Each structure stands twice: as C-alpha cells, then as structure tokens.
C-alpha cells in the first residue's frame, strides 16, 4: 500500500510540474488513436487515409481545445462516409448536428468522453466510461456517453455494410429509396438503444450515490453502478429482444469496475491542483507568481511505515519527503 501511495505521490508531483506538456501529449495520443481507428474502420477516402495526415492532424490536436478535436473527428468520419456514399454522408451529418446540438448545450466539458466511448467499445470495456463519468461528471454527462455510443454503432454499421451503401450511391434512382435503408441501419439498432439507456442510468445512479453523505460512498457507488449496469442490460436484452453475451456483460463490467477502481485511487482521490502561473498587481508592485501545490498528505503514511522498524532513521528524518 505504501508503495502505491509513493507512486501516487510521484504521479501527482510529476503531473503538477509538467501539466501543460502532459496534457498536450495525452491529447496527441488520444487524437492519434481515434484517427487511426477511424481510418482502419472506414478509410474510404484515400487522401486522408494516410499516416502523414494522421500525424499532422494529431499534432495539431495536441494544441486545440477538446471540443474542436471532437469536431475534427466528426469531420474525418464525414469525409470517409462521403467518399463511400453521398446519401449516407447526408444522414450521418444530420445525426452529428442533432448530437452536437444536445451535447454543446448540456455537457460541453465532457469532450473526452465522446472520443473515449468508441475507443473503449473497441477495447471491449465500454462500461468504464459511464462508471467514470458518474464520478467526475454530472447527470448531464449521459448526453456525452450517448453521443459516443451512437457514433460507435454508426461506424460499425457503415463498416459492415459498406458494399451495400456504395452500390446505392452509384444508382441515382436507387438513391431516393436508399435513405430508408441507411436510416434504419444507422438508428434502428436495438442494441444501441439499450446501451444508451443503460449508460444513462449508470451515470445518473453512480452520480447520485457518490453524492450521498455516507462513509465510503464512492466505493458503494462503484459497486451499485456495476449491479445497475448488469441489471439494466439483462432486463433490456429481454425486453428489446437483443442478443448479448451474458458472460461478456459480467466480465466486461467487473473488469471495467476494476479499472475505474484503479483510476479512482490514482486520479479521483488526489487533488491534482494545477501549477498556477498568475499575474496581478497592487498599488506598489506587479506580481508574477508561479504557485506549485504542496505535497503533504502521503508523507504521514510513509513516516508510519518507517517508524515500525527503523525508529532511528525516523528521528533523523525531519520531513519524510526526501525520497520523492
């Protein structure tokens, strides 16, 4: 446990000092993974299905706000779909605008979740996102998870039916009738509906439970979030006649909960106070202040460990922070 606390403390210290660079690198990695997945799944427009373009756009994304990154990803998807079929691109564009209208009004701070949801689906751990957002977001974060889920299922449908969609685009007479086929395919998935409902319920349930004034409310919220997720999906499967592997849901949810538990330990319980660079003035001075957050809580835990078997060392050690 002490080692974990030390690791946590190291991460906090590292993050506090190099926050600006770490955030840029994380954005770069996130954008690159998302673009590579989009290109691997769709990849119909050869001009943008190119490693150099992906690299340049990812580098650009590392300096852009998260919401702009979401729009760039949507533009990439639209360009690929446009290269496949104009009708499909029209419908996908409409769905994106409807989602953005909801998303930018209610949860514009959860851009990360919109991108991470499809990525987590591809890694078979989609339950991580609603469980995490229940802790760090608000009930309105369910809009972001819903947007990510719809995007994932749309990508899956387009990938699986690309031949059919491409054919409809070549025949102008068939094009009018093809809208029905595309809309049915893109939005008619019962599984997508079930996942959107389940994730919305999980986000709201976890948020409400963790907000209760109880001891260990975060752990209770995580446990009940797991139960709610499994129950809603199983009931939904029966009600909507959706086929899903029960074992997959159990294993996926529990594995996701373990990941969320780890994230909780390293991220949620820690005050990642930023290193602040601020400027202000009074009547006498201009102040240019760099405020670095103090690291103090974990030092006590480490001191306790040392006392148990190295009393002499403890007496010499005045602050317990030397090793960090």
């Amino acid at each position, binding site marked *: 446990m002490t080692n974990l606390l030390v690791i946590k403390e190291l991460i906090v210290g590292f993050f506090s000092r190099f926050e600006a660079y770490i955030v840029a690198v994380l954005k770069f990695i996130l954008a690159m993974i998302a673009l590579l997945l989009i290109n691997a799944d769709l990849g119909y427009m050869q001009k943008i299905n190119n490693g150099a373009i992906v690299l340049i756009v990812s580098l650009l994304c590392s300096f852009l706000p998260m919401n702009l990154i979401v729009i760039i990803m949507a533009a990439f998807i639209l360009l690929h779909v446009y290269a496949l079929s104009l009708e499909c691109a029209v*419908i996908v564009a409409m769905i994106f605008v409807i989602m953005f209208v909801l998303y930018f*009004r*209610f949860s514009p701070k959860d851009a990360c979740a919109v991108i991470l949801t499809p990525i987590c689906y591809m890694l078979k751990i989609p339950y991580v996102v609603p469980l995490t957002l229940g802790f760090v977001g608000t009930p309105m974060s369910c809009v972001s998870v819903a947007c990510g889920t719809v995007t994932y299922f749309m990508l899956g449908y387009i990938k699986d039916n690309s031949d059919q969609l491409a054919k409809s685009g070549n025949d102008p007479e068939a094009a*009018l009738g093809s809208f029905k086929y595309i809309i049915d395919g893109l939005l008619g998935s019962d599984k997508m509906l079930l996942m959107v409902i389940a994730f919305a319920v999980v986000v709201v349930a976890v948020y409400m439970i963790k907000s209760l004034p109880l001891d260990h409310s975060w752990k209770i919220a995580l446990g009940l979030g797991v139960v709610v997720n499994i129950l809603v999906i199983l009931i939904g499967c029966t009600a909507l006649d959706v086929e899903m592997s029960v074992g997959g849901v159990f294993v996926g949810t529990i594995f996701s909960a373990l990941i969320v538990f780890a994230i909780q330990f390293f991220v949620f319980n820690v005050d990642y106070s930023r290193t602040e660079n*601020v400027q202000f003035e009074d009547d006498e001075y201009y*102040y240019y202040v760099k405020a670095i957050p103090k690291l103090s809580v974990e030092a006590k835990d480490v001191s306790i460990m040392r006392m148990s078997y190295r009393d002499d060392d403890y007496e010499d050690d005045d602050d317990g922070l030397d090793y960090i």
Partner: protein
Amino acid sequence: MLNEDRIALMTKMAAYESGQGKRDISVSGFFRGDYISFQVLKSALCATVGFALVVAMYILYDLEGFLTDFYKMDVAAFVRDIAVKYAVVLVIYLLISYLVYAYRFSKAKKHMKKYLSELKQLEEMYDWE
C-alpha cells in the same frame, strides 16, 4: 514591503479568476431571471434546429412515398401533427434546460460569494496595513 499572506490570497483569487471564475463572473453579471431566460432561449433555438433535422430525416426516410402522396395528403393535418410534436419536444427540452441552467446559476453564485468574501478579506488586509 511584501506581505506573504496577502500574496497567497491574491494568488488564489487570481487563479480562480483565470479559471472557473471567468465563467462564474460572467454568469453572476446577470440577474437570475435574465440569465436563465437567455439560456433557455438559446436552448429553444437548438431544439428547433434539432427538431427540423429530425423532420427532414423523417421525410427522407420515405422520400419516394412522401413525394407520391404529397398532392393527396391533408397538408394542414400533417403540419398540425408536426407542430404538436414540436411543441411537446420544445416543452421537455426547455424544462430540462431551465433546471440545468438554474442549477448552474446557483452554483456560480455560491462560488462568487466565496470569492467576494476573499475580496473583502483582502481589503481588510490593506486597511490594516
């Protein structure tokens, strides 16, 4: 002479002003009613755009049938039907918007109250000197 306590307080306040405080300060510049009405109005605009797109998708869904039946259909009844659905969607959307923005306003006010008390504290520090 430099007063360390005062600098610490000013730093804390400046950090808040450049982060979350930016939004809180702009929100608290409104009266509650004005802020919520403005946000609800923006939501109404978004809901209208969203609903228009849903209607467009509904028409595109069976475009051939729609074009064939267009001259035979009761246009007034069709428009009335759409208008009723629009009204229902708008009411639900605006109700959710009202609740969300009322909550955000009260949260911003709470933060601003703390900020103003710190401002007062700072003023007292200057007076004391």
